């Protein structure tokens, strides 16, 4: 096992990908706990599509991708949150509408200018080759901020996720924390997109929590378990993709799926006993 890791880490680009991936999967899993349990999974998905189009338009126009897409994604996060609060059913539809429309705009912008070039392709499906030194620093900085904010507000996030009306009644600033959650998710998605791909990024948010809720009975254990699952499946996925020459993002998602199946089986088994 250590030989394999040693072998892989000879390549600096893989080391970078490993570090970025571990940080991103860790934070995405933490944010995902609240998003999934609050039935906001669609927001994660919508954000990643919008993030993709912002990135591809920026690439097409020769603008700095991250600097354009982070403000765009923050605005979208606020918008999507607003929609999903207004009305559950049409909120869902509105999110789907926004994500597909933005995808369409992104594709048109790309095809008019550069065509589907390597950069755009990478943002779509992810690539570990594309991770630069500055991506590495950015992802560490942002992940650290997310982690600190999450730990500080953990108990409030629990209260809001469990029962929003009660949280409001006892004077918690629910709006602020939900906004914070949506914005952090958006930023996390932009950071993780390069490695996972826009179309696969939301699985990093959704899968770990979904797997953990099969077996865990406490909110805290779900959070811890999700973080561990997420990091493990990224590392396993990366190793596999190195040896089997498969795309990293897709491989990580498949590992996540396998873990979900295993956890579901354990959950069913535990209920029977």
């Amino acid at each position, binding site marked *: 096992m250590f030989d394999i890791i040693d072998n892989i880490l000879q390549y600096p680009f893989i080391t970078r990908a490993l570090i970025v991936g571990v940080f991103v999967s860790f934070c995405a899993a933490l944010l995902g706990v609240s998003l999934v*349990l609050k*039935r906001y999974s669609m927001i994660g998905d919508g954000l990643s599509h919008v993030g993709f189009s912002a990135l591809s338009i920026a690439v097409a126009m020769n603008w700095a991708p991250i600097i354009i897409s982070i403000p765009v994604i923050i605005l979208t996060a606020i918008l999507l949150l607003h929609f999903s609060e207004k009305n559950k059913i049409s909120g869902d539809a509105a999110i789907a509408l926004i994500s597909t429309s933005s995808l369409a705009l992104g594709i048109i912008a790309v095809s008019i200018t550069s065509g589907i070039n390597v950069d755009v392709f990478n943002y779509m499906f992810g690539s570990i080759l594309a991770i630069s030194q500055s991506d590495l620093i950015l992802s560490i900085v942002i992940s650290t901020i997310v982690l600190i904010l999450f730990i*500080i*507000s*953990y*108990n*409030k996030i*629990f*209260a809001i996720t*469990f*029962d929003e*009306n*009660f*949280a*409001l*009644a*006892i*004077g*918690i600033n629910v709006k602020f924390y939900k906004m914070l959650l949506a914005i952090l998710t958006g930023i996390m998605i932009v950071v993780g997109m390069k490695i996972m791909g826009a179309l696969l990024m939301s699985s990093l948010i959704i899968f770990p929590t979904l797997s*953990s*809720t099969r077996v*865990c*009975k*406490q*909110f*805290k*254990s*779900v959070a811890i378990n999700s973080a561990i699952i997420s990091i493990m499946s990224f590392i396993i996925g990366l190793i596999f993709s190195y040896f089997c020459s498969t795309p990293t993002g897709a491989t990580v998602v498949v590992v996540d799926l396998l873990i979900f199946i295993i956890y579901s089986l354990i959950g069913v088994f535990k209920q029977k006993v």
Partner: protein
Amino acid sequence: MTLIKCNNVTLGYSSNVIVKDFSLTLSSGDYLCILGENGSGKSTLLKGLLGLKSPLKGNISFVGLKQNEIGYLPQRINIQKDFPASVYEIVLSGCLGCLGVLSFYGKQQKKIALENMELLGIRNLQNKSFRELSGGQQQRVLLARALCATKKILILDEPCAGLDPIVAKNLYKIIKKINTDKNIAIIMVSHDIGSAISDSNMIIHMQEDKPMFFKTPQEYCESLIGKRFLGGI
């Protein structure tokens, strides 16, 4: 000390008026019971008083009261069936209101949570998952959470729905004791007229056009609507 003041408040959903032209002053130590038929607007009124729902007309103001001094038991909560949360986690979350930006629980909060679980007889359930409890047990967990949040006022929406008669009776006793011993104001929606009349010091009867306010339970018993509700004529 006055806690909540309502002046000519009208509450409703968009254009659909539910509670019309309603005034009330609530002081510490008051015990207000809200009675009325299903759909008459009792829960809506509570949400207005809590500030969860802004009035269509008029204004509701907190006088000697801050939002984080209120304990609240909702009638029902919208959570996913398989939400993972332990009883202890939920009860403890009632203490959050008094914590600042750094919301970590201290010894004080843990003590309050344990005391309230003891009070409601759910201490033995503390590590159980909320989703695996019976309806009545869940109700008691949410009550314990509400008690943790209570500093000056406790707002309860049908606290005894789904509780067995012994637990319910015990609970009314606990609520009355909190009311008198700690001088905490109570607002309670209830269908249990007996306890409402014996414990409260004022009653609101909700009905379609306008809520009717009674200064004392006796006054309510002697009114036409009270007689109807009491006797079921």
